[in-house]
């Protein structure tokens, strides 16, 4: 009797069928569609577009802003989530009385729907009544009060802030798990060698949480580039096209029946993710230290 026979490929079939039809096939078709002008679902007016869709997405000022914004959004949110997450994780790793309470509170936004979170901040960032501006004026800093969501230059950063608020606790929990896996005696050894607090962090903590750190970074970068929910809820890509990102651009193209351009934008996003994420991942995993 052949040994392999019990691990029959038949058991793989449901997975391959669903994944193939609803994930792989669209990926392949997406490449094809991106070179076509398609206005209707029935292809009645479809014509070959060459690289026209890509050209539009990359050069049309209403569309190529999505690329710029997606980079800004991914970069700003990743840096803030990972930095703040790391600070909070180090803080809560000190076995405070309030550690459990804090962890619960900071993680809470991660379980809520992005739409709910987006609406909360739409209210908080209201220029006249929103509590952010009210608090700034009350603190004697009226010059810092801004049109958070209606100033085209500022809006993408405001939306990024909402995303950071929602996911920092999540990042913190990933990093905290990494911190708590470091054996206590490593710190004792460092203490005996006379290491300062910063040296302990730099030479013990940081190298050993590198795996958790890498994952947090990669997950957040991908999440940032793919962003859709929060942006769509808070600004819908506006004012004008000021906060357009890949996700909202695809949604808009879909809504207005510009399917070819939507596919081109989506393919560009794929390529961007692969170009950004793979080298970051390789670079960081090369730096990990074996425990």
């Amino acid at each position, binding site marked *: 009797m052949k040994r392999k026979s019990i691990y029959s490929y038949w058991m793989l079939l*449901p*997975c391959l069928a669903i994944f193939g039809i609803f994930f792989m096939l*669209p990926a392949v078709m997406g490449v094809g*569609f991106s070179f076509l002008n398609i206005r209707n679902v029935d292809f009645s007016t479809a014509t070959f577009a060459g690289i026209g869709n890509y050209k539009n997405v990359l050069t049309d000022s209403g569309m190529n802003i999505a690329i710029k914004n997606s980079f800004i959004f991914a970069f700003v949110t990743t840096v803030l989530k990972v930095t703040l997450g790391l600070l909070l994780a180090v803080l809560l790793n000190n076995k405070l009385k309030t550690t459990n309470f804090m962890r619960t509170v900071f993680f809470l936004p991660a*379980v809520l729907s992005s*739409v709910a979170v987006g609406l909360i901040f739409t209210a908080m960032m209201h220029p006249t009544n929103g509590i952010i501006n009210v608090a700034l004026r009350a603190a004697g800093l009226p010059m810092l009060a801004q049109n958070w969501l209606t100033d085209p230059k500022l809006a993408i950063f405001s939306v990024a802030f909402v995303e950071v*608020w929602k996911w920092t606790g999540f990042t913190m929990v990933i990093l905290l*798990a990494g911190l708590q896996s470091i054996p206590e005696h490593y710190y004792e050894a460092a203490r005996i060698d006379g290491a300062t607090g910063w040296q302990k962090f730099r030479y013990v903590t940081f190298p050993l949480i590198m795996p958790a750190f890498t994952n947090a970074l990669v997950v957040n970068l991908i999440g940032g580039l793919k962003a859709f929910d929060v942006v769509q809820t808070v600004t819908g890509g506006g004012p004008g096209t000021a906060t357009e990102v890949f996700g909202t651009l695809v949604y808009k193209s879909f809504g207005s029946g510009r399917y070819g351009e939507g596919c081109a934008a989506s393919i560009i996003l794929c390529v961007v993710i*692969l170009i950004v994420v793979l080298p970051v991942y390789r670079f960081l995993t090369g730096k990990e230290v074996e425990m």
Partner: protein
Amino acid sequence: MAKKVTGMAAEIFALICSLFMLVPFYMILINSFKSKEGAALVNLSLPDEWHIVENYTEMFREGGLGLAFRNSVLLTVPSVLVIIFVSSLAGFVLQRRVSKASKRLLMLILMGLFIPGQIIPTYFICYYMHVRTFLAAGLVLIASNLSMGVFLYTGYFKSIPRELDESAMLDGCNGLQLFFHIIFPLLKPITVTLFIITFMGIWNDFGTTIYFLNSSRNFTLTLTIYNFFGVHSSDWNLVFANVIAVSLPVIIVYFMAQKQIMSGMTSGAVKG
């Protein structure tokens, strides 16, 4: 002594940080109790007059929450069960088989962890297959979560010895019997993790459902908030009541099982 002072300072600092998280919740809760005019100011003061019952009954009447709750359950539960069933079977075969073909297939499926789904072609495929609304959204969400499922299960199968399979085979089990009677029960910890990740992801999904569930009869809870805000954008009291009512079940479940939910939701990233 110095250590005690730093400890205290750290506690106080942590508490101040937590205000950044709690104030928004307090704000929506307190404003959901106010009159329309009071809530328009979206401030943190207590209501002059409490409109708890009026606001919540009006919101429930207009928000269609009962139907939306049913829709959310109808979409989420079957999708999660299919993901668990299909990806555990696939993970089993892909981890146990040591061939080039199975390695390549695994790589292909794991690509889904990075690459975003191509939503427009997916919509076309569903259109031509006459797959609509819940079935379409469900299948697309299943497909986009299979990579995570296969990833978690193949990792977990490494800890289950092959000798177990072999002895079961000697007892006369075939592949499916082996899997369901012996292997699947052993997967419970990772199944719970996957259940949490996919349940939260699909329950809160917006990016896929917005393409496929486009009439109010089909809205999930997440979509109702979005739509409710579109209609009642000047009634912050009702909008906040809506956000509270939709979020409350999730928050209650979270408080009951926070350890599992935290480690479950983050484990996709921790094990990556």
